[in-house]
């Protein structure tokens, strides 16, 4: 480690050189991110206050911030839906993932690595194919609905697809590994002796979980919920495949504004609002949860 530490830099030419080394390492990647992440976001901001110049697809800058108000009012329903669906999907993913991550961390023995690979493995079958597979499994011609109807668990009129239920479960399914892996990472770090100590102090299994395991796994809960919530709030594929017109999310509106209506300023204003809303929520959440251990 000592070699790589760049202490007082002003001693010799070599040291001077060494102190610049991190900047040489950083420069290519950071310049890339400034060119293709920061600048595009600035372009998006500029676009969001433009107005049409008459021709389709041509806009002039007129600093019309009312674009934001218009855009928000036009699609506040989808906006609210994006956040509610994303929150529900995140909670569902947490409920499914926590015991799964717990089992892998504490009960899997030598199968640990295999099970970890299996968590990520479904990723390699295209997520579109898997989402469409869910649509067919739960759909009108699929096996699930027939069984449920024959057993009178659901009425013949009730469908599973084209509902908000389908969209939320689809979101939870698709982003599940983003929840499971950080949970596993934080559970795995827990020293088993702390759990034994809790037992020695006459805590039962549930108390041990509530007072020891759960608090120690909070960094994983925070990271997992963020990594699930953020992509879920911006997603529109699940709503497009598993939903109906009445389950459209903000992503569907932005997509349509861009490609079908060719209304770039509104699409840009909506994208910007979505990003700002997510960043504010995330910042508040991280403050509340009191962990900086994310990046």
């Amino acid at each position, binding site marked *: 480690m000592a070699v790589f530490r760049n202490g007082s830099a002003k001693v010799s030419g070599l040291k001077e050189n060494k102190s610049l080394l991190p900047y040489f390492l950083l420069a290519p990647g950071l310049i890339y991110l400034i060119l293709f992440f920061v600048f595009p976001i600035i372009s998006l901001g500029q676009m969001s206050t433009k107005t049409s110049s008459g021709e389709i697809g041509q806009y002039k800058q007129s600093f019309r911030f009312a674009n934001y108000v218009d855009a928000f009012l036009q699609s506040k329903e989808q906006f609210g839906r994006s956040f509610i669906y994303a929150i529900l999907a995140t909670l569902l993913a947490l409920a499914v993932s926590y015991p799964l991550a717990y089992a892998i961390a504490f009960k899997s023995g030598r199968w640990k690595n295999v099970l970890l690979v299996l968590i990520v493995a479904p990723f390699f079958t295209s997520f579109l194919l898997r989402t469409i*597979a869910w649509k067919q499994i739960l759909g009108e011609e699929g096996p699930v609905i027939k069984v449920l109807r024959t057993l009178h668990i659901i009425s013949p009129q009730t469908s599973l697809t084209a509902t908000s239920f389908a969209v939320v479960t689809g979101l939870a399914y698709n982003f599940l590994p983003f929840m499971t892996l950080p949970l596993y990472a934080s559970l795995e770090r827990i020293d088993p002796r702390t759990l034994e100590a809790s037992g020695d102090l006459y805590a039962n299994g549930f108390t041990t979980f509530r007072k020891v395991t759960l608090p120690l796994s909070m960094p994983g809960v925070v990271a997992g919920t963020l990594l699930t919530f*953020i992509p879920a709030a911006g997603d529109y594929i699940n709503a497009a495949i598993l939903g109906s017109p009445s389950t459209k999310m903000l992503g569907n509106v932005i997509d349509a504004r861009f490609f079908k209506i060719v209304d770039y300023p509104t699409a840009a204003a909506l994208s910007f609002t979505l990003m700002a809303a997510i960043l504010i929520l995330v910042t508040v959440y991280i403050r509340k949860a009191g962990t900086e251990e994310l990046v």
Partner: protein
Amino acid sequence: MKKLTRWLSKNLIRVYAFLGFTYLFIPVFYTFAFSFNNAGRSNLVWKGFTLKNWKNPCGAPDICMALGNSLKIGLISTILATVLGTLIAFALGRYKFVGRSTTNLLIFLPMATPEIVLGASLLTMFLNLGINPGLVPTIIAHVMFCISFVVVTVKARIASLDPRLEQAAMDLYANEWQTFRRVTLPLVAPGIAAAALLAFSLSFDDFIITNFNSGTVTTFPKFVYTAAARGIPAQANVIGSSMFFIALIVVVVGQVLSNKRKAKI
């Protein structure tokens, strides 16, 4: 009965984990099973077993062109993102420097931005500059969103290294470069490989950002999405399942190799 409840309460978490994995894999099995379906153009209802889709995976029009584009975009993006991201990870993992927290923020922000905003903003910039969407803008976009994931993965590996190994190398009169080349790099290599695999799978599977920036270039996810409207050909299931098995083989072989290396040491 009593025995059963005792077994259940003892193994509840295992039963639950089994159900969890079943849930994860149902669509994967479904996709695999329907790759053997003897269906015509749309692969909705089971019509009997056949191997014809596996014998002729390029049978559906344009599907292999789309696959070729996805592989090309995935490979180029992976190489570029892995190089750029690994360099940043070494800077962050090894040095104290001014601007560290700004760098961390710049790495974190692309991961905290929804894909649709990334895609829309890049397209807006390209349109402003008069650049048409296509293959190159798509690769530029993929490298951008893969870099952060590479940095996080490689940085975690660097942070987990035992610094005494490098000190030992220095004590044995290795210079800085030799230490890096013979000790640090081999130890970080599995992290870099994992990051590259992650970058490739993110790029290969990406639809939203690609859809914004690829114009008329079709990738495999774009092909699937467009085909979904009129029924997906079974060949898409063949390709999806193959990717799954290839990825599993790569991971297993990697694991076996690293176990062997550990055994040697």
